[in-house]
């Protein structure tokens, strides 16, 4: 079946790239995603992967390289972290609008200032409006699996959109975890070759990304909107196929942990939700009805799914591992978007934002305990005194 190894999130991503037989990779170093590229360079040098590895002069160039490669029909891969992600900002929308399904790994990292290697979701979340598929893996296994699923979905002719495959910097990129590495045959069955609608070819010249007048604006954007609408049905299908071929079943949108009769859940994405699960389990042993809902799909944000499945809770604590200064609600993007998703149930479900783990600081068991306690107080009193807490200063 597969090969079980203890590897880092970086190596897991590189293994997925090898299995997906990526054609062109563009590299530029920045911690913590860099390990992916050094691993890919080693694989190419050792003959494990046949790919073109281009060392770009910066992240903006990195994204431009995969832009050209994908437009020429190559399955392309790149990645970055922190300010590298924001340096390439200009190129993201064209990649989406011109329907070039490159995959970008983001080993997330706090934005400057000052220099901080530690993880935060802020860098990748800055890209949330660019029209890409996006989500966080919280274990090394999930990094590998999501990379394959993202190529499958992104390259689907009904979708044809690029993807940000995100993982928590250091926690997932650098710590070793147990990963079942699939066989090439399984991946071949799951992931068809990349075949775009338009391919740059001297024999059939085309203009990709032409200049337009405003009158073409609405149709161009709406066409892309329709592609975004296709993501979720394809995602569901892809995860179903994945489960059948590889034996690992994932809920495409929300991973529910001990939620069956829960009154209170923590909601969030990425590595820290694994810590939340450990805390929920301990609290359950004490008889508390708590659980964890881990968001697996960040873009498109599954607001309909959330409304359907999360309206039953009495209180939801939203963990935002990001600094979205000035945002509505005063916490982070997950609080704001969860509240929008639950708008129709209004005050029936109490929601509170917790901004924690900034700068890459650990979100401790004790901090999760305080969050759960705060939610219990809210359920008891029926009152939400503050809609957000920046941990550990305000809670």
């Amino acid at each position, binding site marked *: 079946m597969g090969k079980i190894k*203890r*590897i*880092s*999130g*970086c*190596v897991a991503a*590189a293994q997925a790239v090898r299995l997906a037989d990526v054609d062109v990779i563009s590299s530029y170093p920045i*911690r*913590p995603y*860099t*390990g992916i590229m*050094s*691993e890919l360079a*080693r694989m190419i040098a*050792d003959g494990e992967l046949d790919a073109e590895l281009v060392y770009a002069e910066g992240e903006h160039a990195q994204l431009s390289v995969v832009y050209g490669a994908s437009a020429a029909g190559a399955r392309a891969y790149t990645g970055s972290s922190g300010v590298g992600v924001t340096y390439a900002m200009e190129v993201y929308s064209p990649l989406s609008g011109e329907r070039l399904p490159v995959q970008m790994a983001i080993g997330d990292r706090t934005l400057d*200032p*000052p220099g901080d*290697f*530690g993880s935060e979701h802020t860098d990748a979340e800055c890209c949330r409006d660019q029209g890409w598929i996006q989500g966080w893996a919280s274990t090394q296994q999930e990094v590998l699996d999501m990379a394959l699923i993202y190529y499958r979905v992104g390259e689907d002719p009904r979708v044809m959109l690029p993807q940000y495959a995100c993982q*928590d910097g*250091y*926690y997932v*990129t*650098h*710590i*070793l*975890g147990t990963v079942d590495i699939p066989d090439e045959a399984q991946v071949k069955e799951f992931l068809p070759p990349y075949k775009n609608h338009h391919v740059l070819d001297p024999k059939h010249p085309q203009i990709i990304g032409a200049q337009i007048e405003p009158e073409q604006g609405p149709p161009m954007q709406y066409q892309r909107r329709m592609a975004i609408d296709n993501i979720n049905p394809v995602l569901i299908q892809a995860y179903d196929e994945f489960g059948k071929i590889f034996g690992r079943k994932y809920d495409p949108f929300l991973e529910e942990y001990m939620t069956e009769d829960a009154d209170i859940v923590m909601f969030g994405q990425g*590595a*820290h939700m*694994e*810590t939340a699960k*450990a*805390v929920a389990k*301990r609290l359950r042993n004490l008889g508390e009805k708590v659980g964890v809902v881990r968001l697996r799909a960040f873009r498109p944000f599954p607001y309909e799914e959330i409304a359907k499945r999360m309206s039953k809770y009495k209180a939801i604590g939203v963990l935002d591992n990001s600094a979205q200064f000035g945002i509505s609600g005063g916490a982070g993007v997950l609080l704001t978007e969860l509240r929008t998703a639950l708008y129709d149930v209004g005050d029936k479900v109490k929601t509170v934002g917790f901004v924690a783990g900034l700068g890459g*600081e*650990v*979100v401790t*068991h*004790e901090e999760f*305990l305080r969050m759960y306690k705060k939610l219990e107080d809210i359920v008891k009193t029926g009152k939400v005194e503050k809609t957000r807490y920046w941990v*550990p*200063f305000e809670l």
Partner: protein
Amino acid sequence: MSESLFIEPGLQQVTVWARGVLMNKDARDIVVGLTEAAAKEGKHVQAWENYVDLPDRIYVPVRAYAKISTDPIESRYVYENDAPDVVVLVEETMVKGLAVLDGIKPGAVLVVNSRRSPEEVRGFLGDTSGLSALVTVDANSMSKALMTLSGAEGATDATGIGAGISAPIAGAVVKATGIVKIDNLANVVKNPDAMKRGYNECKIMKLEKTQPKKIKKITAQERLEQLPFAGTVPSPQVDNRGMVTGSWRTQRPILDAEQCTGCGICWIYCPDACVTRTDDGLVTFNLEFCKGCALCSSECPTNAVTMVPELDFKD
């Protein structure tokens, strides 16, 4: 309540200290070797390197960690081991001036790669309360230290595990703690003979049971109160009190005044401005910051500077 709520009774923590660039590989091999062996025994394991010790420079202290547990590990996503059961020093000078015993569990074991006896090494550690045993193993006589960047930053190690001094050091850890079975470790490391030498030839000194000292942690609130505007700090102009590097040194420059001509070549070459020319025509070395790079010694035209192992000095 929370302190007892999150206890993991089946969890053992191993913290390995080494010197940057030169010894990361061996430090990594110790934690990966032990965890791979433990995995063969059905244990839940995690191995990783200290994220903020990297990127490293030569001689700077760096750390690697292992967690080995009978149950799924709950404290997975942390930066350090908060309560080591085993502390390993890949380089002996690290007993001097580094807080290697901070946070140890009662009954912890310290393993030091050194030719010296446990008794001699203990003299440098200061407060050893909490330690139940102190072990020395002369790993450098049993194997050759390995230096490579392969496996750094989470990438795959293409050179294999346990070919260097990590093997005998890991062997000594097994002898002193029984944390894994020696046969499983022998199947993981590339140099099982060296591993077994470390196992058989290490010197173990048992210590009386004592409680480890409590470590006071600085809180986030305290950090907030100390934080200058926008995090902007004055630039050091003479020396940097925030980064005193004498503890990076594994060997100390000693001047033979008879041979010294006062030429000042060592003063020119010292990369850290740690040489001062004195009024009597000689030089002195700033031992607060000297990292022991030995450029002074190798450039001295009269062989007036000798490098002496730092642990030969009690101060």
